[in-house]
């Protein structure tokens, strides 16, 4: 942070930093010019997980609440897109606002009654909620049961049909960038400070007049919206979704990204998301053992670097 920014009392942009970001974005935007489909596929997935991890980071990192059922919100987004386009025959773009509403409702349903509980109860309730959503989409007719929804139409944007991997590379890159900007703005907003206050000392925060339940609920809803929007585009990219995408392991993987990188710190979370996507690709041989390797690394990180690889600085 530059001197001027410190004086202004808000997180600011030095010229050097702004230039760095522009160069980085330009480099990332140029990738489809030379990379083959394999790299584009992996990188698209990486940007997608950046978005999901940033969303979960609002709940786990900023507000300090453990959520073990985050895949449920991702499922809400993906299935909303599927139902809106396949069952209702509406445009894909309509599924975005609808899924935001659906995710907010889901956030309120899970958050509303449980936020007054102790944090460890919350963890198990979110886990149970994640399983409830998965079992429900598996058994309902409207969600296509165990085989899921197939043949979701890919959207068209300004006359351009989004049907190539290159297009989805840009879509997910854009979503990740928007996610970073939104997270950054939220972190430094009034509510962002309230989250961190509640996280470090809930009683003191309440004594200062912060409505802790509302603040936590806001974290759940905003986190859910990130996942829901990601889920919509995921459905559009894959054109098929099934309940097995939204298991507890999916929730764990996203949580790993957040915790591994450094919960509460945006660059740390981005790093964590990149690690969880790229690491298994680098070690394709360990394939089936990847969760074992993850478990060990998570344990070691918790024991030796409890705040993550690139932790948040405490001010």
């Amino acid at each position, binding site marked *: 942070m530059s001197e001027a920014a410190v004086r202004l009392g808000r997180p600011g942009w030095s010229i050097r930093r702004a230039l760095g970001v522009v160069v980085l974005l330009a480099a990332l935007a140029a990738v489809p010019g030379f990379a083959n489909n394999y790299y584009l596929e992996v990188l698209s997935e990486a940007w997608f997980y950046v978005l999901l991890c940033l969303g979960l980071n609002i709940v786990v990192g900023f507000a300090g609440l453990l959520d073990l059922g985050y895949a449920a919100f991702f499922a809400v987004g993906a299935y909303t897109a599927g139902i809106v386009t396949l069952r209702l025959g509406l445009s894909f773009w309509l599924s975005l606002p609808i899924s935001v509403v659906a995710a907010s409702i889901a956030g309120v349903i899970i958050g509303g009654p449980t936020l007054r509980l102790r944090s460890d109860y919350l963890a*198990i309730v979110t886990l*149970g909620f994640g399983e409830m959503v998965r*079992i429900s989409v*598996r058994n309902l007719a409207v969600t296509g049961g165990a085989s899921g929804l197939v043949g979701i139409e890919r959207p068209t944007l300004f006359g351009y049909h989004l049907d190539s991997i290159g297009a989805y590379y840009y879509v997910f890159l854009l979503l990740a960038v928007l996610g970073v900007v939104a997270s950054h703005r939220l972190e430094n907003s009034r509510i962002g400070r309230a989250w961190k206050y509640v996280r470090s000392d809930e009683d003191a925060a309440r004594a200062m007049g912060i409505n802790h339940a509302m603040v936590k609920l806001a974290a759940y809803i905003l986190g859910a919206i990130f996942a829901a929007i990601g889920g919509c585009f995921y459905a559009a990219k894959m054109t098929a979704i099934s309940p097995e995408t939204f298991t507890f392991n999916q929730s764990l993987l996203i949580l790993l990204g957040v915790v591994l990188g450094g919960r509460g710190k945006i660059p740390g979370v981005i790093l964590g998301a990149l690690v969880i996507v790229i690491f298994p690709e680098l070690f394709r041989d360990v394939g089936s053992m990847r*969760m074992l390797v993850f*478990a060990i690394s998570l344990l070691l990180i918790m024991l030796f670097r409890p705040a993550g690889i690139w932790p948040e600085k405490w001010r």
Partner: protein
Amino acid sequence: MPLYEVLLQQLANGLILGSFYALVALGYSMVYGVIKLLNFAHGDLYMVGAFAGFGALSLISGWAGGGWGGIVPAILFSMLAVGVLGVIIDRVAYRPLREAPKLSVLITALAVSMLLENVALAFTGGQYTAFTTSLGFAGINLGMVHVTWTQMVLVGTSVVLMVVLELFVSGTRHGKAMRAIAIDQDACRLMGIDVDRTIALTFLIGSALAAAAGVLAGVYYGSINFFMGFLIGLKAFTAAVIGGIGSIPGAMLGGILLGLLEAFGTQIPGVGSEWKDVFVFAFLILFLVFRPTGLLGQPEVERM
């Protein structure tokens, strides 16, 4: 079958299921009661227990036979082995984080759970392992309902273990130390109680009970797999919450109630058995919202 026989059959099923839940819930509840840690790895200790019992039984069934003569030593071996594993887990993963923020400890517990599951996955290749015993289906008939001796012994064993535990915690010095640590760790240290050792003892007992439940479940269902601990861990936690977390009679009551609820829930017209887990979790959320202290729990005052 007439209605009352359906109900009787479900009562038997519910009691068996419930006694497994209760045994696992006890360990959850004890550990939570003493150090306020939600031990996510607890369900996986049940799974490891099943495998340890299976291994022991396959080794000794040659001369001890596949009946109770082999199963009882297998259960005892598994309880000991998993009890020690629980103590090691506490020593390696949880003790260094005793003063750390809750979130870090919870995530560590999650990592231990993943580790146990994936080690078991690597050993079994994700296949179901047949848990064969030479126990027959002999038993007694109540109308058209057939209850095997095995089922009765399973429920009986669980009840005996629970009673022994309750006597231990309420009657012995070690049990008193556990209850004291649950109230105030620092004061216990000042009073000369070896806190770390008592916590290790809690892990030993809790893990051993989970292991016993795991072997009994293997005997009952006839097959075990690396993933069997996940769902039962969740449900045992639900049972512990329903009964009142930290309370031993509460964990038993909650386990039995949950088992019965699940068994009878599948009989409600229009609700298939695929919905039973949704049912259980909905029940958990309702309980947490309206009666977070459970049926037998003490209302807790969170200190500042």
